[in-house]
């Protein structure tokens, strides 16, 4: 494995540990400035949505629909109706595999 990949492993581990430690150490009992908290509180939603659509609606550098698109959409409908994480993920896998098998 290239040294660049090991650098990525180490770098990701360090930033993750520092981020997870920062709140408990530095902000013990205190709150983030409201503006910072507002942006950070929304970052996960924006990034998660971006990760999901670039997996479900794109293939590399082009927009593309495929069996996994349908699987993820079905999971989304299930989650919106209150399905558990296992049911939603299971539905996504089954729908994707079935559509691939028949296509």
């Amino acid at each position, binding site marked *: 494995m290239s040294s660049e990949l090991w650098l990525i492993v180490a770098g990701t581990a360090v930033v993750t540990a520092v981020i*997870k430690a920062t709140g408990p150490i530095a902000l013990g009992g205190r709150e983030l400035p409201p503006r910072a908290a507002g942006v950070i509180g929304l970052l996960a939603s924006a990034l998660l949505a971006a990760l999901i659509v670039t997996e479900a609606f794109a293939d590399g550098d082009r927009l593309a629909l495929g069996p996994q698109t349908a699987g993820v959409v079905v999971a989304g409908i299930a989650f919106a109706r209150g399905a558990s994480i296992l049911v939603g993920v299971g539905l996504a896998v089954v729908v994707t595999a079935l559509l691939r098998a028949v296509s």
Partner: protein
Amino acid sequence: MSSSPQPTPRESYRTGLRAGVPFAIAGGLLSLTFGVLAREVGFSALGAIVMSAIVFAGSAQFAVVSILAGGGGAGAAILAAALMNSRFLPMGAALAPSLSGGWLKRAAQGQTVVDASWAMANRGEGRFDRHFLFGATSVQYVTWFSGTAIGALGGSALPDPETLGLDAIFPAFFLGLLIAELRDGHAGAVALAGALIALALVPVAPAGVPVLAASIAALAGLRRRRSAS
């Protein structure tokens, strides 16, 4: 089991362990696909396993792999991981009053924050059950580590992950987390904007940029939080 209203730390830990099991099963499948994907972008089996053991943050690990798969470099990958994990800042801050001990112990306890455990350990009014959190996270850590090992070491023996539909696990799992996140608050418009920014940039921007650029949508929080508080 005692029926006292205040559970002992051991009881809380066990309750957390049980509550974490469904997420641990889904996470185990997810980390299996991480192990397979990491090999495909050039990781050794050891590298993939070490990453899961010391990073233990699914969305960040997948962000790294998808950026590398698209041809992105180390800087973009680590930056994407940092941005993806930035949500642990407010989560850790919210947890802080419920932790105990000196800074090193608090820092260590903060490492146990993962999305599902944190949400389930929230007891309302700013209080968290930290022993529940430790229990829920520990079972997820075990399956995250072992799933990665199975995927990284045995991925070539498995049928093609796409035939099995395993490539749908990652987006579906995070869609579940996202929808749970959208239940409280007004992040729906931000999520939609982030998704549209990313999709619009997919055909034109270098690898990794679409997901990073989606974070711009979170700047809506500059205004919104003020009016909400």
